[in-house]
């Protein structure tokens, strides 16, 4: 028995409807109306959402499709805004599947952040995974393989999550998605946490980000960088705020991500590793778990969605216009793509935490929360990650894309220009939002889930941030000769299922195959030969013995029947004669005894 207690327009329904429309409609103008109109409609619907809606009683379980509290709403707005900006950026793309997948992906994300129970959360979680893979598949063999690896990793994560949910319900736990592990972590809680950590790209479950995101289309990666990991941050903040292990894990994550970003050569892979690093800040703050720390995690998610989106837009524009993405192949594009340079630099400086940007506001909240929680070790780790951020994204990335010398093989880049108007407009709006979040921190703080706030532009914070950034720049100036990017890729945990799987295949094709052949030969000699001889003997016995006995019996019955048929003449005198003979024979036998 299903019963909806009340009706409200769920933003996911709008995105799903638009996704179906985009998959069917061929007309360009209609496509554009759907692409630009749907996020606006979804934002209006999100603003008008009641606190709770879409309750359903199904198979004895209470499901809640809509819980629009302060924590959900911040992420909901962020995702809808990024869906709008991503759609604007991708406006010139003609692939119906890509557009449909992007909006189905947005539907999944909005569904997850509004889900009030594990069952609906899982449904939208899976929608996210299966829709997003279509943004990675781009026609090349490399992107197809990356997409398959991506979906396999996420399917494994989803199975773990589902196992956790089922175990939780089976052991009498509630289906409601609330804070978990309050009275100690059960096995179900650990499984659910593992499923969430995989989507948050927490090491060692992080390699899928750097493997798959660089293979996505320039438009598709805008959605990817904003949605999956940030949805995971939301579910961690909802379900595991204050879980101690997350704090050091997040700090380590921030350093590992930025460490890879520092030495990576592929521009989009640098940004992908950087996602891991920035999500590390959020996971660390969630692990601290105080109201201010959770506010910091949410604020950093909001600003990072904008900043990372802006960076991917800028680098995507470069890839689109030059056809190149490796730093050693790029350089001296400042004159060819000046607007892209300015807008991307805003994103780079914002993510580095420069004052007057959104990144500064959110990092300040996280750092203040760590100071108040008396965690100097974690604070130093995150500050070191900040140095790496400015190193890799604030200086290295722009230096080798837009500046540097014009090398022989980069001459072709000079023919490139700024991208189409819609891409520039999307970048401009994203940069404006990031700057607005930095210049008017009260606007961002008003959206945060908890009341507790801190002073953002304190002299100490501004001074320390400027010192850190200037010292990093000075350090890089000193060692500038070592910065030159070199071609090559970096090994990561994905080696285990890329090379590792190949090794397993070789093991199967080589030693295991030979062992199989030997066992087969032994079986032929020791098993099949004697079995065939035994079979022949049994056949002979069957034919000569059993068949002979059965046939003989049948033949005897036939002869006896024929004899009886002959005896039965139908004449009474013959029967009386026979009876008399039989009587005398019987009499003789009796007398002889």
């Amino acid at each position: 028995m299903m019963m909806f207690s009340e009706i409200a327009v769920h933003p996911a329904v709008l995105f799903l409807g638009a996704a179906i429309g985009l998959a069917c409609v061929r007309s360009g103008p209609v496509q554009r109306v759907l692409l630009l109109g749907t996020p606006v409609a979804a934002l209006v619907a999100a603003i008008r959402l009641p606190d709770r809606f879409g309750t359903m009683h199904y198979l004895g379980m209470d499901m809640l499709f809509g819980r629009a509290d302060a924590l959900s709403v911040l992420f909901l707005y962020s995702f809808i805004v990024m869906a709008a900006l991503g759609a604007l950026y991708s406006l010139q793309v003609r692939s119906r599947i890509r557009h449909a997948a992007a909006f189905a992906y947005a539907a999944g994300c909005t569904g997850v952040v509004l889900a009030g129970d594990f069952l609906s959360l899982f449904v939208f979680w899976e929608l996210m995974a299966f829709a997003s893979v279509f943004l990675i598949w781009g026609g090349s063999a490399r992107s197809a393989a990356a997409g398959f690896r991506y979906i396999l990793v996420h399917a494994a994560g989803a199975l773990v999550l589902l196992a956790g949910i089922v175990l939780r319900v089976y052991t009498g736990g509630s289906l409601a998605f609330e804070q978990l592990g309050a009275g100690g972590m059960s096995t179900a809680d650990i499984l659910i946490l593992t499923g969430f950590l995989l989507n948050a790209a927490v090491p060692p479950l992080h390699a899928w980000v750097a493997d798959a995101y660089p293979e996505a289309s320039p438009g598709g990666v805008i959605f990817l960088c904003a949605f999956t990991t940030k949805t995971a941050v939301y579910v961690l903040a909802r379900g595991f705020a204050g879980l101690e292990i997350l704090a050091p894990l997040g700090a380590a994550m921030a350093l590992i991500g930025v460490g890879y970003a520092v030495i990576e050569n592929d521009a989009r892979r640098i940004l992908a590793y950087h996602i891991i690093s920035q999500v590390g800040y959020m996971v660390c703050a969630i692990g601290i778990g105080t109201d201010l720390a959770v506010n910091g995690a949410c604020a950093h998610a909001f600003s990072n969605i904008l900043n990372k989106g802006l960076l991917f837009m800028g680098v995507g524009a470069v890839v689109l216009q030059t056809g190149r993405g490796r730093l050693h192949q790029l350089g001296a594009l400042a004159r060819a793509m000046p607007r892209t340079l300015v807008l991307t630099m805003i994103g780079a400086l914002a993510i580095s935490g420069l004052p007057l940007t959104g990144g500064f506001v959110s990092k300040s909240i996280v750092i203040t929360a760590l100071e108040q929680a008396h965690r100097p070790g974690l604070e130093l780790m995150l500050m070191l990650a900040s140095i790496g951020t400015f190193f890799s994204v604030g200086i290295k990335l722009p230096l080798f894309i837009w500046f540097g010398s014009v090398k022989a093989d980069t001459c072709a880049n000079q023919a490139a220009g700024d991208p189409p108007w819609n891409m520039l407009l999307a970048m401009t709006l994203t940069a404006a939002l990031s700057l607005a979040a930095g210049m008017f921190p009260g606007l961002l703080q008003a959206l945060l889930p908890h009341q507790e706030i801190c002073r953002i532009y304190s002299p100490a914070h501004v001074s320390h941030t400027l010192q850190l950034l200037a010292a990093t720049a000075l350090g890089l100036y000193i060692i500038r000769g070592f910065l030159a990017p070199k071609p090559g890729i970096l090994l990561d945990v994905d080696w285990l299922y890329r090379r590792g799987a190949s090794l397993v295949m070789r093991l199967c094709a080589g030693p295991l195959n030979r062992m199989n052949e030997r066992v087969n030969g032994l079986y032929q000699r020791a098993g099949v030969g004697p079995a065939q001889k035994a079979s022949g003997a049994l056949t002979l016995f069957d034919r000569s013995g059993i068949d002979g006995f059965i046939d003989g019996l049948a033949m005897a019955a036939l002869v006896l029947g024929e004899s009886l048929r002959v005896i039965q003449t139908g004449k009474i005198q013959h029967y009386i004669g026979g009876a008399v003979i039989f009587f005398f024979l019987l009499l003789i036998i009796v007398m002889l005894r």
Partner: protein
Amino acid sequence: MNETVTTSKGRHVWLPAALILILLAGVVADILGADHEGPAGVFAIPGFWSVFGLAGCLMLAGVCKLVARLLKRPENYYDDVL
């Protein structure tokens, strides 16, 4: 040719000078704001974040360079297995 060299050198001098000025300004701000709100302990030492930034940057670059030697492979490393 000479002009180009001078400009290049001038730019090179100007950049670290500006960065050092920012660092000095930060240290002065730390000293002046020592009695006000801010972090405690070692983090409150004036100029701590300048030293940490410089040392952290050099250390990060060195460690990452070493790690890169271990982890770097040719571009086509995975091509046979995709």
